[in-house]
Each structure stands twice: as structure tokens, then as C-alpha cells.
């Protein structure tokens, strides 16, 4: 995990350092004198060899210093800490949406195989995977905000400030971001359940006298979740990527919006910090998924899954 984070940081650092544009000039503006530029470069350590710059950067991060924005000179950490809860709220609600859809649809699809509910479920999974989230977002805004006026079209209010309004504003973005994951999970859960439902221990469960509902929920679901978790884990990275689009469309001031603006305005320290944070989250969550495996399936010992 540490090794991966190290490589992640190296990649981010080198990427951002080859970004075209001179940080010193960005800070001082076009009219700056060459002397002032040179002085600032020296002060920022831009003349040092790259590996020194890297060590400097990592050392600062470990001390909680992510540098200052080149645009408004505010400390990056402060901005980041403001935006993180917003994105976490969005991802949490999207995840809830995904689970609320995927569990029932996946189970129904697998247990009513070849019937109408299976076809509907499969169709949902198929189209959900293919739906571009920006299009879905725009359609939802058009339908539910512009036409039906059920929800406000965009914006963000913190949960602590106005709970009802905050939730109302979160619903469309959460559906936008959650649909893709819901579709992936549905598809995976269906095929994994179909597999599990053919196993001998399911027959044993029926032979004991359990009814279908108890067999599916009590015996099949837990076994079927293992491969679903794998997909869920792999999808998380995409999930954060999706938040970039969703936040842009719905005007939600989270990490996604921050990183897009920072990339478009070449605000390097902010880009570095955001991307590092996202990668860090992915690594941490994958680690948590590994732990979840060993809880669900007693045959798996911690740390064996990711290596397979």
C-alpha cells in the first residue's frame, strides 16, 4: 500500500511538472519583470534538480503542507478540507442509490430468470452501463428540474445548514453518479447469484426445508457478494472520476469541480493535492474491500485476494 502510494506520488509529481506553463509567471502575472520572476523561482525552489523538488514536496505533504494555490494564494489544504466533505456526501448518497437499485434488481433478475423481471433487470443493467453520466445528468435536470420542477436544477447546501434542501439538491446528482455503479453491480450480482444458485450447498439448503426467499437471502447472497465486491472495488476509482462530471453539471463545489478548474487554469499545487487525495482514497478503499472479503468469506485470508 505504501509502495503504491509512493509510486502514485511520483507519477503525480512528474505529470504536473511537465504540465506546460511556468508557475512563477502564473503567480506574478504577465507584467512581471524578469528579475522578479527569477527571484520567485529561486524562492519556490524551481531551480533545484527535480528529485530535490520531489523530496521537498513529499516532505511538506507529510507535514500537512500542500502548498498554496497559484490562483488565489490560499493554502491548498484549507480548500481541500472544505471540498472533501462535499464530495464524500455525494459519493455516499450515490453509493446508497447504487445499492438500493442493485440489490433488489440483481436478486429479482437472478431468481426470476428468463421472465419479464429478468429482462427488465438485464435491460436496466445494460443501458445503465452505457449511459454517459453527463447526458443522464442533463436529462434528469431537464425532466425533473425544468419540466416537472420537483427538484432544484443545481447547487449545493451543506447538510448541517438546511437538511431538507441539501437532500433535495443531492438526489439528482446521486442518481446521475450512482446509476452506472448500480448497473455494474446489478449485472455482476445477477451472474454471480445465478452461479451460486446452482451450487450443491443451495440444494442442501432446500433439502433442509428452507423456502426460496430464505435460501436466497440466507445462503446464496453472502456467497454471491464476493465477486460483486471485486467489481465494486474496481469501480471506486471510476466513481471518483464520475464525480468530476457530476459536480461540474450540478454545480457542486467538491473535489471533482476543484480539480477540473485547477487543470484548466494550470493551478499545479491544487491539481497535485486533489489527484493525490483521490488516489489515496482509492487505495484505502481497496484495502477496506480486502478486509471485507475476509469477513464475508472465511476461506479467504487477509491480503490474498489482491494478489490473485
Amino acid at each position, binding site marked *: 500500500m505504501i509502495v503504491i502510494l509512493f509510486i502514485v506520488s511520483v507519477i503525480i509529481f512528474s*505529470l504536473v511538472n511537465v504540465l506546460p506553463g511556468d508557475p512563477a509567471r502564473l503567480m506574478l502575472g504577465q507584467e512581471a519583470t524578469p528579475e522578479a520572476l527569477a527571484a520567485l523561482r529561486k524562492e519556490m525552489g524551481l531551480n533545484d534538480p527535480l528529485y530535490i523538488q520531489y523530496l521537498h514536496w513529499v516532505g511538506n505533504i507529510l507535514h500537512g503542507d500542500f502548498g498554496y494555490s497559484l490562483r488565489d494564494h490560499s493554502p491548498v489544504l484549507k480548500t481541500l478540507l472544505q471540498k472533501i466533505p462535499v464530495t464524500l456526501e455525494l459519493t455516499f448518497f450515490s453509493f446508497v442509490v447504487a445499492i438500493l437499485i442493485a440489490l433488489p434488481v440483481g436478486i429479482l433478475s437472478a431468481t426470476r430468470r428468463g421472465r419479464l423481471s429478468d429482462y427488465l433487470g438485464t435491460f436496466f443493467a445494460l443501458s445503465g452501463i452505457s449511459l454517459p453520466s*453527463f447526458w443522464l445528468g*442533463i436529462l434528469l435536470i*431537464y425532466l425533473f428540474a425544468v419540466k416537472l420542477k420537483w427538484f432544484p436544477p443545481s447547487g449545493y447546501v451543506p447538510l448541517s445548514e438546511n437538511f431538507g434542501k441539501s437532500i433535495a439538491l443531492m438526489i439528482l446528482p446521486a442518481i446521475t453518479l450512482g446509476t452506472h455503479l448500480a448497473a455494474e453491480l446489478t449485472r455482476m450480482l445477477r451472474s454471480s447469484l445465478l452461479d451460486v444458485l446452482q451450487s450443491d450447498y443451495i440444494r442442501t439448503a432446500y433439502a433442509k426445508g428452507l423456502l426460496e426467499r430464505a435460501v436466497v437471502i440466507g445462503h446464496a447472497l453472502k456467497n454471491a457478494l464476493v465477486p460483486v465486491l471485486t467489481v465494486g472495488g474496481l469501480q471506486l476509482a471510476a466513481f471518483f472520476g464520475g464525480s468530476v462530471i457530476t459536480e461540474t453539471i450540478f454545480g457542486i463545489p467538491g473535489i471533482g469541480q476543484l480539480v477540473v478548474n485547477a*487543470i*484548466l487554469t494550470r493551478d499545479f499545487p491544487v491539481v497535485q493535492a486533489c489527484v493525490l487525495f483521490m488516489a489515496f482514497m482509492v487505495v484505502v478503499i481497496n484495502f477496506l474491500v480486502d478486509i471485507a472479503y475476509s469477513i464475508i468469506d472465511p476461506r479467504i485470508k487477509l491480503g490474498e485476494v489482491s494478489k490473485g
Partner: protein
Amino acid sequence: MSQTNAQTAAPYPNRLESSPRLRSLKKALGRFFQNKLGVAGGLFLLILVILAIFAPWLAPYNPMKQDYMAILQGPSAKHWFGTDDLGRDVLSRIIYGARVSLKAGIISVAIALAIGVPIGLISGYFRGFWDEFIIMRITDAMLSFPSLVLALTLAAVFGAGLNNAMLAIGLVYTPHFIRLVRGQVLAQREREYVEAAIAAGISHWRIMLRHILPNAWAPIMVQATLSVAGAIISEASLSFLGLGTQPPTPSWGSMLSEGQGYITQAPWIAVFPGLFIFLAVMSINVFGDGVRDMLDPKLK
């Protein structure tokens, strides 16, 4: 997945002997055509490809021609999909946009294949320090980035534009192929025929290219097909955010982005390009599923 419990449902020995190559190809094609969704997806793709290739002849208008007499018109007999804020014909722009999207999808994946397959092949074949500690670690690290964010950053590094966007997307997809190919190679390497080939003194390159790669080809092709769908979405996303295709060249993603501002007055500007992205991606997905079932009915 087998329809019934193998033990009780098919109690009699399967009497199909292994068939020669031609027959198995025929059977595979038969399986593909049984998959009606896959066939439908393939047909729609074919239409898109024809639209893209013959765009100048098929598009009713010049996609860049602005017509201030026909701004923000709804769908009509004259303009099937309406016109945008500059009076350009949305249908014509979608037809030209198909060129961008298909090109982006295919070239990005080609780049990923061109880099990922050789690295995965060599890394998995020779194993050792480089494989375990350099290639795989870097791959893991790359996979921990949200792919869209990585593509965005790369696109920013290379500069906005379709070519750079394709390169960025290709690089983002590369680790997936390294992983897949490496996994396939590791599985094949254990097989007896590889050991026999090594024992017979055949060179490593020949074993890799003539023996291992052909056997790993099916899953690579399936993954490549499905990746084209992802790459099309990625390109559209980059264009949507302003880092892909640059105006005035029509692309589905940038059209959506432009149309977003007119969603209240003229929803068709955004709805139709999005619909085409959706349909294109969906047909590639079902087509890819069909190809997978065709190549190996056991894979799933």
C-alpha cells in the same frame, strides 16, 4: 452458464468430439447469430461506421455552416434534430461527430493495445524483478487513479485537442491491457505445450509470439471491444469538459457541452448527441458480449 445442473440434467456422455477449425468457426458464428442483441448492436455499429465514412454525402447540411435565420429551431422536416444556437443543423453535426467518436474510440484502444500487449507479454513471460516490482507496481498505481482524472491531467499536459485526447485515453487504458495480457501469459506459461517448446529449444520470442499470444487472443479482443465503448465515453467527457475536440469541429461530447446551456429553450441540442453516445456505447457493449460468447461460451 449451463442451463441445468450438469450432473443430473445431462446424464449421458456428451458425444460431440472436438471439431476441426472450420467447423468450430462456423459454430462460433452460429452462436453469435443466436445472440440477437449482439447482432442488433453490430448492425447499429455498421450504420454508424457508414455514416462516419460517407458523412460528406449523407449529412443534409454542412455541419459548420451557421444560419442566423434558423437559430434554435426544434426538430422539423427540414432539420430532423433541430438546429443549435448558431443555426447549425444538429443531425449533420451528429453525423460528422460520429467520425470523431469512432476514431477516438478505436485509435485510443489501438494505442493501449500497442503499448500494453508487448509489455504484458514480456513482463508475464520473463517474470522476475522488473515484472514484480516495477511493471506491476506502476500498473497498480496507475489503476488507483480515477481514469477520467488521469485522462484529464494527461490531456492538460499534452494540450487540448483530439489527437492529444486520444493519446491520453490510450495511456489511461494501457495498464488494463498489461494486466490482462500478463494474466493470460501466466496462465499459458504453466501449460505443458510451453514447457515442451522450451525443452525443444525454441526461442523465447517465437514461443511468445507464435504460441502464447494466439492462445491469449480471445480475451484480449473482447476487452479491446469493450474498451472502445469506454474510450468513446472518455473522449466525449474530455470534450464535454473542454479538453478534447475543439470547436468548431463537431463532436458528440462538445455538442452536449454547448447544448447544456440551452437545456431549457432547446433541449434537442444536448439530447440527440447524448442519445447517439448512449446508443453507440450500448451497441459496442452488446456486440462485445456477443463476441465474448462467440469466442468462448464458458467465459462470463
